[in-house]
């Protein structure tokens, strides 16, 4: 119980942020036309590439002689970057095709 109380009071901001973010995510997606389901899925998929930031912080903090951490950290950056670059580019290509309606 003590540990739980300590955890909650130390992380109360994070808990608020988490709950509000969940709420925001739900709200943002309600009422989307089917036309945009695929681009939306692909666009949010690109956002999950934020995991790259973690890779960057990991590699920066790693000891420059610790090749295992450097190697795996760089691998996570490569994978994350493919997700970011590919995800945004593919979404952009899809959306380019939605031209203005013809009069």
């Amino acid at each position, binding site marked *: 119980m003590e540990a739980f109380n300590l955890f909650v009071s130390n992380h109360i901001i994070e808990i608020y942020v988490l709950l509000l973010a969940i709420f925001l995510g739900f709200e943002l997606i309600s009422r989307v036309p089917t036309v945009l389901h695929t681009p939306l899925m*692909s666009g949010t998929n690109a956002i999950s590439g934020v995991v790259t930031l973690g*890779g960057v912080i990991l590699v920066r903090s790693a000891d420059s002689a610790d090749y295992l951490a450097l190697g795996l950290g760089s691998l996570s950056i490569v994978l994350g970057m493919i997700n970011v670059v590919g995800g945004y580019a593919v979404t952009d290509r899809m959306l380019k095709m939605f031209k203005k309606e013809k009069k």
Partner: protein
Amino acid sequence: MTGIVSILYMVAVFCFAIGIRMLRQPKSAKQGNLISLAGMLIGIVGALIQPLGEVDNNYIWIAAAMLLGTMIGWPLAQKVKMTAMPQLVAMFNGLGGASATTLGIVELMKVSAETPGGSIAVSILALIIGGISFTGSVLAYLKLEGTLRKQWVVPMHNFWNLLILVGMVVIGAIMVVQGSVNIPLLLGLVVLALFYGVFFVFPIGGADMPVVISLLNSLTGLSAAAAGAIYDNKTMLIGGILVGASGTILTLLMCQAMNRSLWNVILAGKFKAGSGAGGGTDQVMKEITKPDAAILLQYSKNVIVIPGYGLAVSQAQKTVKELDDLLNSMDVEVKYAIHPVAGRMPGHMNVLLAEADVPYEKLLDLDDANAALKDTDVVLIIGANDVVNPSANDDPSSPIYGMPILNATDAKHIIVMKRGRGTGYSGIENPLFFHDKTQLYFGDAKASLQEITEELKENA
């Protein structure tokens, strides 16, 4: 510097939220995607300059890794055909998951006596969720490519499912409680997570893949959020949660479109090849010849096209537009009925038809289309199957019973373009093909459409 970095991270989060918001409308979608991209770049800059104390930085490694990732991701995105889009999104999604898993592994290897239990727990979460998403996405990719068409269910599938989950929780709990990580436990955790992804997606049929990809997408978001908790990085945390939450809603919307619950899709076993009535009967399929098909279309008042995956496979979207224009010049009104789960991804057909310059207002959604079909002369079904299967309305033994469909039989005539006589991707028998009103035109969708277009040109 800390202040600047915090603001950069905050701006990045807002860009994500605004970007997703703008992706909701066709007019602003393209800009929304660019704003979200800007947020990502700002976030990366933040991670590059964030003060971390006395560290080695290793910028060379980072630059090389980023360059390599860009060099792989960019050409993949540029070269892919519009029809193979769902697979590619699944693949990108899986790599994001793999990235989170890798981070989790490295962080767990670094665990020491001072590491708080909370940090160990979030590293474990990132590893597990990312791993499931990785192998699950790879499997979804293979299923969509058609490389893998089998789906087996081992006896007591749900029991094993649960057992693996419990196994992962137990290993995780041991690590947190002991406050230490040894290599066998870590390896065990990785193997279980990777295996679970395979096990989870394998029994799910091809027809349900759109739902699975959307679900995996939200899992990858959650794994990114867990990784964000490791580094106490708000951009990762909120960005990941946004993806997780919005992905969950999108998944539920898709299930709604099929009138099934998410559990029903995941717990699977429902879609089994060859099940459902109609198989093995002595009914015959009526074929229609090229001139007959052309004349039927030419002398009708209006035509509704129901596209399916067959249209995508044969890249027939431009050809169908050509036929559409030709019929228009003959005063035949052409519209398109889009089922929410036609193709391999929601909105798949919309994207393809948009590529061929078919204007939005010609695309009817499920309800509008069913209303319009009652007053339609000819319905032209191009490579669609389950979404027009009347068993969904009237055959409780069919695996898709209860799914809302496009009621093609309400129209006066039905022409079905189909590659062969088989049951197609989901393996479910479709009585529509044997219906009184139905006439079949066998062949590749694009070639068939071209033949009919040529014939119409000669008649004109």
